[in-house]
């Protein structure tokens, strides 16, 4: 069992969840309540990483992260090194790859909140912030938990993107999924087996959480 790789994976998954939570909330609510004609475009852009091959995403990120590219160069000027082969690099990759997982469940949950409920709250003198906090969030939290669970599990298993930009550095970019691949390549079935079982369990728990939340959502509507 590669504990260092597990800790990298857990750190990556936790930070991805933490950073995507406000983004997912804001984007999910905006898309759910928007009546703009650009909405389908916004939804398509959010969903793109879901259907894009991870290696393609990894390829573009590798290009963008290089110190000769504008983004990578700017990053280097600010922080002293490029993004390829760094934890910050795989974190940014992970944020992009997980956007749909963080946004879509939240968006579905907000869509299920009747618009007249919000309007009733405003008529009763609640500020929009207050409405969000006291009325909407209690209704959409199952969606938020689903989003977090999916993002967490998906980050634990992210492989293609991280293989492209990571460089398998111990304690920095060698995640559990990469470590499994390396163990299989090195003919260490036992090592790969233990780590795979861990990821399988994590996936199973995630699905349990997501389905449990879906049940709750149905409950609050009925």
């Amino acid at each position, binding site marked *: 069992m590669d504990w260092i790789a597990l800790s990298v994976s857990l750190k990556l998954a936790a930070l991805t969840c933490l950073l995507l939570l406000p983004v997912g909330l804001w984007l999910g609510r905006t898309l759910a309540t928007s009546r703009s004609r650009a909405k389908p475009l916004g939804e398509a852009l959010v969903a793109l990483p879901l259907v894009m091959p991870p290696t393609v995403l990894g390829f573009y990120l590798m290009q963008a992260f*290089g110190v000769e590219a504008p983004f990578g160069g700017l990053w280097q000027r600010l922080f002293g090194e*490029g993004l390829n082969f760094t934890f910050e690099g795989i974190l940014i990759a992970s944020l992009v790859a997980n956007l749909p997982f963080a946004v879509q469940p939240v968006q579905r949950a907000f869509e299920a909140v009747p618009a007249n409920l919000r309007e009733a709250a405003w008529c009763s003198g609640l500020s929009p912030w207050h409405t969000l906090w006291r009325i909407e969030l209690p209704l959409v939290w199952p969606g938020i938990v689903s989003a977090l669970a999916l993002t967490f599990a998906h980050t634990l298993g992210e492989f293609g993107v991280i293989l492209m930009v990571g460089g398998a550095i111990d304690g920095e970019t060698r995640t559990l999924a990469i470590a499994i691949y390396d163990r299989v*390549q090195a003919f260490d079935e036992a090592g790969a087996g233990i780590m795979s079982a861990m990821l399988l369990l994590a996936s199973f728990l995630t699905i349990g959480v997501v389905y449990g939340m879906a049940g709750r959502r149905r409950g609050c509507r009925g």
Partner: protein
Amino acid sequence: MSPFTRAGCRALLLGFALLLSPLAIAAEPPTVAAASDLQFALGEAAERFTAETGRELRLNFGSSGNFRRQIAQGAPFELYLSADEGYVLALHEAGHLEDAGVVYAVGRLAWLQPRGQGELPPASAPLAAVREAIDAHAAGQGRPRLALANPEHAPYGVAARQVLERAELWEASAPLRVLGENVSQAARFALTRDARGGLVAWSLALAPPIAARSEHVLIPESWHAPLIQRMALVEGAGETARAFYAWLQQQEARAILAGYGFRPPDDGFRPPGDGLRLPEDAGP
């Protein structure tokens, strides 16, 4: 409209037939599994072979260890060219190959760096850039990366590790090392601007697309265990694969390989010698 009407059924059947049709075509080009250090050399050799014989081949490049596993599991490869002869011998022992095959080349390791990334080390001290990168990092001047293939499972990674250990730079280089999944990816990493360079297959450094944007210096052969590369026909290989296997042992093919820095073997067949590392067998 239900898909289970007569027309719908027919369309479904036709769809399945189309999906399965590749399995039904008998005389398709054989698939060759080759180590990633052969990426360019074998491509050129195969082109020449096809031009001469009119027979097509399908080349698959990847990590030798991966192919070894796939062949053991019955993947439909007909010819296997490994960068580590141990894999071929292990597969032969397990009964997946026609015979123990032949040594087709001896690989060499090179220091590869992007063009204009600093001083190219002299041939007398090919690790000078590694030391320079380590010193720069120690002095707090950024983190110039050093790329190599993963020594856990890539033959060229094992050799690179031996070279660094011999020079007592393995520990010191740890914070700078980035690992490619195979030696091709290591070369790709070595040529990013984030890297000072890398220790990769000489055959890749000599390939035109890489040579155009890089400089390299050869690592002395005595600094690491020899990279003896062996190939063999997989059990049940067809006629075209056999012809290519024979052709690769001719002078013309050897000249192509030599152009990519592969030293020809002293003789065609080398029985397993002493001190040969047989990888643990992964079982059926």
